Every structure is written in C-alpha cells, then in structure tokens.
C-alpha cells in the first residue's frame, strides 16, 4: 500500500473527492435518518448519481453515504424508538429511554462518537486485512475460485434469515437472472427475447436498485396507509464532549469494534447482528446489567460502535475475493463494475489506487461523522423525521426512477427496475430474502466462468474440483456450513422428543 500512498492520498483528498465524501456523509445521514430507509436503500437510491463522477470521486460518495446512513439510522432510533436502519435496532434499547429521561442530546452525541470510532476501526481492519488476503487469493486457480463463489452463494443462502430453504430459492432466482445475456464461451444468446438491451445481460446496478429500493418503499407506503400519526420531536440539548465520552466509553468501543469486525467479515451477518451481539456482550460484562434498557449510554455506544465497524469489515471479502458479504457490498461491487472494473482477487493488483483509495475513503468518512453528524447537524437531520409519511414513499420512488433512467439514458431500464421491484416485492411478501439473489446475480458469472475453465483444463474430468488442497479446505468449510445447522436441528429434535417422552 505504501508504494501507492502518495497517489492514493492525492486522489482521495483532491477537491472533488473531498466534496463527494462530505456530500455523501451529509446525504447518508439525512437519508438514513428517514424511518424505513436502510443503508442499502440509501445507496441504491443515490448510486446513479455517482456514475458520472470519476471512479474514486464516485466511490468516495458511496463510502460517505454508507458510513453516514448507518449513523443516521440512530437518530430516529433514539428520538422516536423507530430504527432508521435495521442496524439501529439495538440502539433503541437504551437510546429511546435516554430520550424519555431528557437526555436525547447525550444519546445522540454518544451515538455520533461511537459510530465514528467504529467506522474508523472497521476501515483500518479493511486496510490491514484486505491486501494480505488478496495476495493469498491471487494464487487461486479456476477450481478454487469456483468453490469460493459457491461458498459465497451458499453461505448467504443458508445463514441469512431463519429459513435456509427460502435462502436457496433466492439464490436460484439470482443464478437464473445471471444467465440472461450472451454465453461467453459459445456466443449463444440466452433468455434475451430479441431485446438488444438484454444481449449484454441484465444491468446489475439497475437490478440491485430495483430489488433494494422499490420493495421497501412500497412497504413504507403500505405502512403509512395504516399509520398516519404526526411525529413530534423531543428537545435536543448538548451534553457530552468527545474526550469525556472517550474516557467513559473506550472499553465499550474496543469490544464493539472487535465484534463489528468479526461479524462484518462473515457473509450475511450484517450490522444489526453485530450491534445486538455487542450490546449483549457489554451488558453481560457490566456491573449493573439491570440498568441496561432503562437509558444506559454504554448500551448506545456498544450498538453504534459495532454496527459502524461492520461497514468496513463487510468490504473485506468483497474487495479481496469479489465475494460481497452484504447487500451494500454487492452494490459497491455493482458500482465498480459500472466503472469497468472486474471484481476478484486481481482487482487490488490491477487497480491498487482505486481499491486503496476506497479503503482510505472508508476511514476518512468514518472520521467525518463527528464534524458533519455532530449535535448541531443532528438537530437539522432530525427534521427529516417531520416529513409526512404520505410524501416520503412517493418522493423516494420518483428519485429512484430518475436516477435509474439517468444511468444508461434508457427507458428499458425503467422497465427492468419495475420488473425487479415487483419480483422483490413478492419475494419479500413470501419471506424470501433478497440478499442471496443479489449475491448470486453477481457471483453467477464468476461461478460459471470458473466451472467452464476448470472443465476445459481437466478435459471434462470433475475430479479437478476435489484434488487441490485449497479446494478441499473450502469444501470442508462448506460441509461445516451445511452440517452444523443439520446437527443442531437433530440435537434439538432429540431433546424435544426426550422432553415430550418425560412429560
């Protein structure tokens, strides 16, 4: 990294990149503060704006939106007990009781500092772990990369949500969507229906925006049909400075950051899980665990630090292996592809300035949360909570439509956007998670390409997938991944049977 540092820093801290990061954080906090708008949705909605920009400027804006939106989710969680993003669920546990006690300002400041520290530590982990992992991955051949892609798809399908079967259905849908377009080995058009726009395959950015922006917005509109109450904001007072917060919460920040990083690296785990584990762990180790849930600032610090540390860590598998471990990482991969980059282990070797630049941008946008998301700004951002619910959903949808049209100047893309939105809407209604489909859509071509190349190398001998040491190690992980839940389920059913027999 140090070889490229001067070039990276000159790009990252150039005027336009700096402005993009500042605007990204401000936009991210504002959008993340809207109840029901997740970080994924915020990025999906604002992603098209970044496509006209220079690669690093665009990525800077995305990094800013990501960091800002995760913090922004804490604002409604603290003020109204409505988590702005799923990652802010654990923030409501103590954040809202603090507001009820008249400590809204203190809760917001603790959340702001903790988010910033978590974000910066997560980005440091990305900078330290990413490059060595990428170098290891560069030694992988096609059979290993096939298994890496397979593991990525399978892990998200099985680990996300509470029904692995529906996760697999979602993966199947994503793999099929990835087949649309021209077969690279034969030149055969697949499922293009004569549409010239489909010959090159579905535009990943449009599909992801359709899947992640349309269904939650429709859900938001539906819920505003059921709930039309006008929100009232509590009084927000200044309460705690950064250094006194650091003295009080440094231990919580250390454990929250470590938990956020470890959870972030796992595919499909997500910021909400990191925040809940960190909250529980802090409560477990506390001298006064009974005070948690009644307005304990340490609870807010633990949750917010972990969910922001997760942001940088979630990009580790995406930038080193090309395997996005979260929906936001999938969107970032989509953005890289729009800028003509091929995700995978070679990305860091071929585009070091861009990849290191994104890492530094994640670090810097984590820092920017303090000056830009601080108390004064938070008072302003809290005003977005006053946008009437009946206007919010239509506004988001119309921004999304404008953004998607502007990606390729194509009305066909608007059709794809709504088709994917419709698919995502019904998938969500049926309880089918969307993330495995998005991951399979991105990893499908990688899976197919490496499958084909491996079989060509081995002259159609499938044993090539089972004879190499790294492949065997990945297969062992896959077996563990499938076997562990099955064994747990078997043990649980045996226990249940035993209990019933005793009764």
């Amino acid at each position, binding site marked *: 990294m140090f070889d490229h540092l001067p070039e990276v820093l000159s790009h990252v801290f150039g005027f336009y990149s700096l402005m993009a990061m500042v605007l990204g954080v401000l936009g991210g906090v504002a959008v993340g503060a809207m109840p029901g708008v997740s970080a994924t949705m915020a990025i999906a909605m604002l992603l098209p704006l970044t496509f006209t920009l220079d690669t690093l400027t665009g990525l800077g804006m995305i990094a800013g939106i990501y960091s800002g939106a995760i913090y922004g989710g804490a604002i409604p969680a603290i003020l109204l007990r409505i988590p702005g993003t799923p990652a802010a669920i654990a923030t409501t546990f103590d954040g809202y009781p603090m507001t009820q006690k008249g400590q809204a300002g203190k809760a917001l400041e603790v959340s702001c500092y903790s988010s910033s520290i978590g974000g910066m530590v997560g980005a440091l982990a990305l900078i330290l772990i990413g490059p060595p992992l990428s170098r290891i991955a560069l030694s992988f051949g096609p059979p290993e990369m096939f298994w890496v892609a397979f593991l990525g798809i399978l892990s998200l399908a099985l680990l996300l949500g509470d029904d692995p079967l529906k996760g697999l259905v979602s993966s199947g849908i994503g*793999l099929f969507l990835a087949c649309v377009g021209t077969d690279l080995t034969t030149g055969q058009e697949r499922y293009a229906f004569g549409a010239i726009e489909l010959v090159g395959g579905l535009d990943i950015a449009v599909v992801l925006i359709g899947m992640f922006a349309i269904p939650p917005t429709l859900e938001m509109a539906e819920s505003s049909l059921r709930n039309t109450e006008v929100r009232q904001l509590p009084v927000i007072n200044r309460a705690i400075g950064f250094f006194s917060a650091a003295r009080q919460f440094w231990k919580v920040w250390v454990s929250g950051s470590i938990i956020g990083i470890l959870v972030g690296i796992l595919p499909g785990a997500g910021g909400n899980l990191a925040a809940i584990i960190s909250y529980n762990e802090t409560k477990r180790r506390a001298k006064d665990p009974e005070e948690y849930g009644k307005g304990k600032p340490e609870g807010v610090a633990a949750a917010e630090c972990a969910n922001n540390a997760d942001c940088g860590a979630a990009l580790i598998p995406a930038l080193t292996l090309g395997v996005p471990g979260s929906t936001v990482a999938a969107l970032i991969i989509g953005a890289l592809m729009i800028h003509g980059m091929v995700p995978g282990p070679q990305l860091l070797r071929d585009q070091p300035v861009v990849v290191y630049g994104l890492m530094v941008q994640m670090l810097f946008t984590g820092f920017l949360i303090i000056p830009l998301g601080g108390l004064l700004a938070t008072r302003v951002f809290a005003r977005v909570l006053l946008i009437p619910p009946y*206007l919010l959903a239509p506004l988001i949808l119309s921004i999304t439509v404008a953004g998607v049209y502007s990606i390729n100047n194509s009305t066909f893309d608007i059709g794809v956007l709504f088709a994917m939105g419709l698919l995502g809407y019904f998938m969500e209604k049926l309880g089918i998670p969307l993330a495995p489909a998005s991951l399979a859509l991105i990893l499908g071509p990688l899976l197919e390409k490496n499958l084909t190349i491996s079989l060509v190398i081995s002259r159609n001998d499938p044993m090539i997938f089972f004879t190499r040491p790294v492949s065997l190690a990945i297969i062992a992980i896959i077996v563990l991944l499938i076997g562990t839940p099955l064994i747990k389920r078997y043990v649980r059913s045996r226990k249940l049977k035993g209990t019933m027999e005793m009764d």
Partner: protein
Amino acid sequence: MSHAAANILGAGVLLLGVAYAWLLTGDFEQEAARNYPYAVLAFTGVVLTVWLVRSIRRLKAGIAERQADDASGGLGSIGGYLVLGGTLIYGALVVYFGYVVPTLIYLAVMAYFLGGRNWLTIGAVAVLFPFAIYGFLVYGFDRPLPF
C-alpha cells in the same frame, strides 16, 4: 390468504417460470450453452418443489409459516396492491411521457391516497420536486432525463 397458501401460490408460480425457462433453454442452438442454465434450473426446480411440498404439508397440518410480521396477510393488502398498481402505471407513464408531468401527477395522487390532506404542502412538493430533481440531474450532474 394464509402464509402457507401464499407460499404454495408463490412456489407454484415460480415452478411454472422454471418450466418455461427449461423449454426456452431447449431451443438454444449451441449445446454447450445449455448445460449451465439446465443445472441452475434443475437446482431451482428441486428447491422450489421441496418448498411447495413443505407448504402443502403445513397447510394441511395447519402449521403457520414463519414469516415477517405482516398484519395484512400472506400476500399483502388491497391498499398495498393499489399502491403497487399506481406505481407501475407511473413507471409506464414516465416511459411514454417523460419525467416531470407523470411525477407531478404521481406525487399528488399518491400523497392523497396515502392519507395526505394538506393540499398546500402536497401541491408545493408535487410541483417543485420534479423540477428540482430534473434540474439537479440534468444541469447539476449532466445526466440525461426526458422532460
């Protein structure tokens, strides 16, 4: 509609989609281009069949599917479908008539449908917002957007 019934309907529709895609795959001229899509469709078909069978068994046994908290039933409410329908019409209008006018109409109609009655706010937002987005994208970011 119960969640189990909704799941049966969903799995059934998706299975029909897989069957149709299977027929399309058979028409590919190059044999080598068929193998991978066939494998994907076979995998999806098997998983969907297992889901369908499980949902039928659950429906017969009266076991509720574990599902996200949705008070309006397995496949949503009528209000939700009206929102969906309005949004799809909006998408079609944008394709044929450009961005500004359909967005203006969509914002006003949808805000009213979703319970908004403050006409001053709705009117101001519906008129100003499409122009603001148009100006922002076309003049601010130099992106194309049909007026």
